[in-house]
């Protein structure tokens, strides 16, 4: 295992960087898009609710690999050339945002309806009461399941390996077949994933304690 780090340290570090970059981009966008659709799911307007439902059910129920392959193969053929890294990241954003939307929606709905009614009766608009009264409480409830989604997102970024996105898993596959030491290579890859996910996991725990 140490020899793997010695011989292929550069490749592994590069892969770690790509995985981290993809995860951060995907995390930010998936959280924004997911929260947006979560709010659309609870607005009074039925049209928006249906749109949100369709988006969520489509991307939640298709395997991540299929979404990613669509962006890697079909989009470059007809529309615009995008690399494996970009298509993997887009796939990850769409897929994760659907799960995050459902998580955040459950949080919004677990806030007592009386909170919304009370806010509205003081003269705040729907969006104002959402922004200042409901959402802050909702996010507090959903921090633990949201943490799960974030960790899943980091691990799911291994989908980049299938579209030559040069991430950690890709480097792992290349190194395993080059060094012919599959087991030690994938152990190294596992440890590097832990380096990414463990701090994230502890940070979410900390947030939970601080806000709850």
């Amino acid at each position, binding site marked *: 295992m140490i020899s793997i780090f010695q011989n292929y340290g550069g490749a592994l570090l590069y892969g770690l960087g790509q995985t981290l970059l993809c995860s951060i981009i995907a995390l930010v966008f998936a959280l924004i898009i997911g929260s947006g659709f979560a709010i659309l799911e609870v607005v009074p307007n039925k049209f928006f609710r249906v749109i949100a439902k369709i988006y969520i059910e489509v991307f939640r129920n298709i395997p991540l690999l299929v979404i990613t392959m669509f962006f*890697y193969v079909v989009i470059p053929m007809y529309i615009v050339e995008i690399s494996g890294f970009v298509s993997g990241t887009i796939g990850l954003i769409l897929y994760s945002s659907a799960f995050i939307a459902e998580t955040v929606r459950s949080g919004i709905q677990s806030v007592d309806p009386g909170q919304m009614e009370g806010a509205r009766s003081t003269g705040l608009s729907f969006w104002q009461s959402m922004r200042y009264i409901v959402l802050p409480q909702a996010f507090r409830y959903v921090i633990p399941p949201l943490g799960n989604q974030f960790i899943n997102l980091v691990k799911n970024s291994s989908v980049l390996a299938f579209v030559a996105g040069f991430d950690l898993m890709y480097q792992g596959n290349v190194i395993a*077949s080059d060094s012919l030491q*599959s087991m030690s290579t994938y152990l190294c890859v596992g440890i590097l994933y832990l380096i990414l996910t463990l701090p994230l996991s502890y940070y979410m725990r900390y947030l939970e304690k601080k806000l709850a």
Partner: protein
Amino acid sequence: MKKLFSKIGLLVALTVMVVSLGACSSSASKKNVLKDDQQTKTITWGVKADTKLFGLMDVRDNQIKGFEIDLAKAMTKQILGKDGKARFIQVTSQTRMPLLRNGNIDAIMATMTITPERAKQVDFSRSYFDAGQAILVKNGSPIKNVRDLNKKGAVVLGVVGSNSVQNIGKFAPKAKVLQLSDYSQALTALKSGQGDALTTDNGILYGMSIENPGYSVVGGTFTNEPYGIAVDKGQAPLRNAMNSALTKVENSGQYNKLLYKWFHKVKGFDFKGAER
């Protein structure tokens, strides 16, 4: 106290896992695979299932079919007698070595080039097919041979764990290499424009060009890639049996028949050079 117990439990579970993993890799090398196979009348081969002409899964009847499959069947009959059975397990470039080491398969016949590095890990039979690396491009592509790829911005597609991606580093060092997980995916990537050329051994590329008339093999071969059958280290009896079985299959004319069966449709295939 409870916490302590759960921690100890975890530690024990981890230790058992690590020890059993370690045991997997060492136990297989002790026994004599040839003797076991003669008793069970079965040889388990690790073969490719994504490679047209050599070993391709036919989804209609769930059988792997190809030149290597037929050759493996013929050699099994030579080694074990008429009632010998060949069992096939699908492998990829990454899984074939571990599967051979831990004894899931007895031998690898999966378009595997004999190289000095690999010969340190496994024992090779003599070569049963002499391939060479080439490139596949879209018809009308400005790229005519491997030297045309040696420029900035050129993208070459290959398969993870194959020899060919390392060779590209020597013949076209300026090109960027993308390694995909299998040949069908690499071909899909070529079709969708993710790369300028696909590189691997000519036999495999010929299979792709038969299925996809819009693509052709250009520039001829630029390396020698002799395919060998790999057995685990310390299985010399099995390897010797493989070599003599191969000789018998070649001398009986069966080899040439199989060669014709699988490659007669390929344009530009050099039968004279490949016949034995």
